[in-house]
């Protein structure tokens, strides 16, 4: 690859962090799922009961099962169904981590338009992740 076609420093940094986070997320997803299925940890909803609920709308599912919404799963980390959720959380958080890592690179280059874009993007993702905004009933 010649110097002209070599990706920018921030692009390579983003790629490197994204690779690590997504691999970690996928590994955690699979491990967490097997922990959930193995039954070694207690569950909020037993895995064999899930089919009774998966035809329901999510609002009714949460109401009937008492499954946590937003970040209220944090104190319930000892449960199998929550452990199986951790990989999903890490995968969803990966992009946010990448943006936090590349922001200083754009700042160093005094690339104002992209500093603003990345900063707003971080705020948007934080807002989505916070659980402040949700749809539904």
């Amino acid at each position: 690859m010649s110097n002209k076609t070599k990706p920018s420093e921030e692009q390579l940094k983003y790629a490197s962090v994204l690779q690590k986070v997504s691999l970690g997320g996928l590994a955690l997803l699979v491990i967490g799922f097997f922990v959930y299925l193995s039954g070694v940890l207690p569950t909020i909803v037993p895995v064999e009961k899930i089919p009774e609920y998966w035809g329901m709308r999510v609002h009714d599912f949460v109401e009937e099962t008492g499954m946590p919404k937003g970040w209220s799963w944090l104190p319930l980390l000892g449960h199998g169904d929550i452990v199986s959720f951790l990989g999903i959380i890490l995968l969803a958080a990966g992009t946010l981590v990448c943006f936090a890592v590349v922001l200083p690179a754009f700042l160093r280059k005094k690339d104002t338009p992209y500093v603003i874009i990345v900063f707003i993007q971080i705020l948007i993702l934080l807002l989505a992740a916070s659980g402040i905004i949700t749809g539904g009933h």
Partner: protein
Amino acid sequence: MSRALRRFFSLFVVVVAVVIGLYGIASAGEVAEATRKGSTIVWWMWPVILFVFTFLLGILAVVAGVGGGVLFVPIVSSFFPFNLDFVRGAGLLVALTGALSAGPGLLKRGLANLRLALPMALIASTCSIFGAMVGLALPTNVVQTALGATIIAIVVIMATAKRSDFPEVKKPDALSTVLRISGIYYEESVGKEINWQIHRTPLGLSLFILIGFMAGMFGLGAGWANVPVLNLLLGAPLKISVATSVFLLSITDTAAAWVYINKGAVLPLIAVPSVAGMMLGTRIGVRILARAKPKAVKWIVISFLFLAGLRALLKGLGIWG
């Protein structure tokens, strides 16, 4: 074999696929309905069937050159007993993990472009949050009807959209100049470095409002829309457009996925087998691609997608299922 005979054979394959598909979707719909009412199928069979199904879907998606994310929601919501809310949550995760796996390699090789993706991603991800909120708030039949209509529109786009390997951009627009969106990449097929720039950036950005909204509302990957906008409208080379579209999905779908996660609409029992099946299937699909006849497979997949869209539309309208 003569050209006319080959055409007749291709048409025959598509017609047979459509007939089998119609029968399959009708039967699957009945099975799914029976399960909702309490069938004798052992519960753990569904995740196993889902894994096998998404594995096959992953192979077909690669061979046909169609995004797995766009196939997942309409087909799984037709074939399986899960509520559309959970199917959309899993669909977003399927599209997201696919994009996260491919993204780093595409960025490192300089095919996906960060400067091109970030402004589009900001608009698309913001709108995908609103799409997800609206999708979870509307009654299921309304979302199902809109999904069906959207899928049929996507089929039309897939069947008719042209692509341009190296679109001609005589002069970049003011916004892309300010944002310094341009690049050089090595094109292996012609053995030389290609300079590229884009135009019509404001119009492209405004289209990402709609693309993001639909991705969030229906839990679909949005490659079917990203690529034509990046390639035909903005004028980015095809390889740059496809790679940047995949990377873009990792940001758009992340934002929408958070809404589904926080709402409780991502069930690991549905999402994990789907993600695993699709990822394994796409890896096998890449190997099969060298020996397969992508055109015939593409038409079969598009036919199935059309049928799944039609079923979603009729189901939403209360006519079928």
